[in-house]
Each structure stands twice: as C-alpha cells, then as structure tokens.
C-alpha cells in the first residue's frame, strides 16, 4: 500500500497545480468563466480513453498468459475508466447547458457514441458480477475488454467523421486553436488527471489482491464439517 500512498501524493500535488491553472487561466470571449470547465471535462475523457486502452491491453495479456494479475488490472481500469467517463459526461452537460443552451443532444455523434461506450463498460462490470466462476469471469471480461476498446477511436474521431454540435479538437498535431496560456493549463490538467488515474487504479488493484487472498484463506463452513457416519457414532 505504500506505493499507492506515494502515487496518491504525487497525483494530489499535480491536481493542485492543475486546479490553480484552471482557476487563473484566461477565458474565451464567448464562454467567459465557463471556459474553465474544459480543464476538467477534456482531461476526464482523455483518462477514460487511456483507462479503456489499458483494459484492452491487460485483457489481451490475460488471454495469452492467464495470470490473475492481468485480470485485476483490466477490471480496475474499467472501474476508473467508468468513473472518469461519468465526470466527463457530467461536466460536459453542465458546460453544454451554459454555452450551447442545451445539456444533451442524442443527434450529436460525440455524445451518442460516448454514452454507448459508457453503458458498454458498465455492462462489463455487470457481466463480472453475473459470473461467479473466477476463470470464466476473467475470460468473458477479457473478450469484452479487448473488443469494446474499438469504441475509443470511434468516440474520438466522431466529431471529424460527422457534423456535430460538439466542437472538433482544439489541440491537434499541427497546432492549437487556443492561446498558449489555455493550452498549458489544459496540458497540466491532462498530466494531473493521468497521475490520478494511475493512483486510483493502483489502489483498486491492491484491493483486488487483498480480496483474492482473503477468499483463498476462507473455507466455507460447509466444507469444514464432514458428514458424520452412523457407524462411527457410539451410543446412538
């Protein structure tokens, strides 16, 4: 757990730096103060993509190696991925209501595809709950984890493939369509959220390890008691 504490401390420091920049960076002339939400919204979604990518990687490694470690990482990464997708969706809706004038539009390809991705990964967690046998659970999760990641590029490029209400990318390989001060605030938050993801996922993996070792030690009551044989009992 010591490693997790160190990761959490580093993440906390980075998040504090990110928060400072979020609150002090310049704002867009149209959106005003609502611009600041992008520093939580975009990093959240980036981390969700990263998390689901890690899950796909771990899922494939489990299918190849069949060691528990990869199953734990895959599952933990889905949990954090779903959490950050939720914060991304929530901040997006707050921003949308304020700037667009509408919190949600199913006709928009970015929103629709992100919602599907969110529900599919919640389905991953439900699937795990529904599968008591650990090996079958790991196998089914790994297959879903490896396949579901295809949604990540679909969600990311949805705004480029289709006309959308959601904006296209402001930071691109050929440059940014926002002033440097805003780019810096956004990038620092990307790094901070990534560190937070690493810390939270590592913590969740530790919890999973503890659960597994507890389960291995526990003998169900029924197995501890053997059926008495009448021939061995005296004075019946």
């Amino acid at each position, binding site marked *: 757990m010591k490693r997790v504490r160190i990761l959490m401390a580093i993440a906390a420091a980075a998040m504090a730096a990110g928060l400072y920049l979020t609150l002090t960076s310049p704002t867009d002339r149209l959106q005003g103060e609502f611009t600041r939400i992008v520093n939580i919204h975009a990093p959240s979604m980036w981390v969700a993509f990263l998390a689901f990518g890690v899950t796909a990687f771990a899922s494939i490694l489990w299918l190849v190696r069949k060691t528990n470690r990869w199953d734990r990482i895959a599952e933990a990464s889905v949990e954090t991925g779903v959490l950050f997708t939720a914060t991304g969706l929530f901040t997006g809706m707050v921003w949308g209501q304020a700037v*667009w004038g509408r919190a949600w539009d*199913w006709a928009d*390809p970015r929103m629709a595809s992100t919602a599907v991705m969110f*529900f599919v990964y919640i389905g991953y967690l439900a*699937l795990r709950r529904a599968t008591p046998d650990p090996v079958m659970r790991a196998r089914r999760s790994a297959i879903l984890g490896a396949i579901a990641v295809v949604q990540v590029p679909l969600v990311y490029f949805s705004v480029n493939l289709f*006309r959308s*209400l959601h904006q*296209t990318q402001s930071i691109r390989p050929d440059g940014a369509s926002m002033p440097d001060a805003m780019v810096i605030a956004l990038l620092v938050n990307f790094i901070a959220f990534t560190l937070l993801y690493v810390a939270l996922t590592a913590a969740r993996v530790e919890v999973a390890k503890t659960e597994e070792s507890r389960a291995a030690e526990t003998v169900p009551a029924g197995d501890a008691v053997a059926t008495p044989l009448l021939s061995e009992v005296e004075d019946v």
Partner: protein
Amino acid sequence: MSHRRFVYLGIGGVIAIVLALTFTGLNDSLTYYLYPSEAVDQRADFPDGERFRLAGIVVPGTVVEGEGSTAFDVTDGGADIPVVLNGPQPSLFAEEVPLLLEGAWSGDTFEADAALIRHDENYEVPEEGGAYPEG
C-alpha cells in the same frame, strides 16, 4: 433466463437503442445540420414546415427584437437567410455568434423554435473592452 444472458441482452439492447437514436437523429435531414448555402441549394427538398437544422452566424446589424421573438439573418459567407426565432434567445446570443437553429422554412424565412450556440474549436481571449470580434 440466466442472469448472464440478461446482462448480454441488456448491453446489446442499449447499444441497439443508442445507435438507432444516433442514426435516426442524423438522418433527420440527411445530415445533422445544413449551412445557409446548402439550405438554399436544397430548398426544394425541404418544403414549408418540414423540419431541419440550420447552422449559421448571426449577421451584424440585422437583429430586431420583438415580443417573444427575435428576427435576424444568418450567413455562412455564401448565402444569407432571414430567421425568425419564436422562443427565448440562448443566453450567449449576440451578433457574429454561430447558431444552430431548429425549425422549418416558411416562404423565404426560416421559422425557428429553438436556437443553440454552436461553439467551435477556437478559443480567443477578448481584447481590451472585449466583446465578440467584428468582421
């Protein structure tokens, strides 16, 4: 049916519903929205009253506020279309702001009942005395 099968059906069902919503939403008017030049070109495809979404920038100097409605022109640099918005202005409404309007043709005017601000990928810091840029 087993719990597992229920979960699979649930996931599949959700994907099906949302994909259906996405593609019927997009097919609403072949595309999510039309720019003014396209709307004018495709005028014959959209008779009066047939709903679609129009995306354009508010032309400065054309805004006329009425009671419960606002009239203005939108443009994409190609065509200008007069719009009547029957409903509240979105809170960030101003000249030169890009809008997404929902409504239909009524003669040469676009009658809209809803308007959204369509913020694009450009973020700009206001100059001194900052208002939305001119020109």
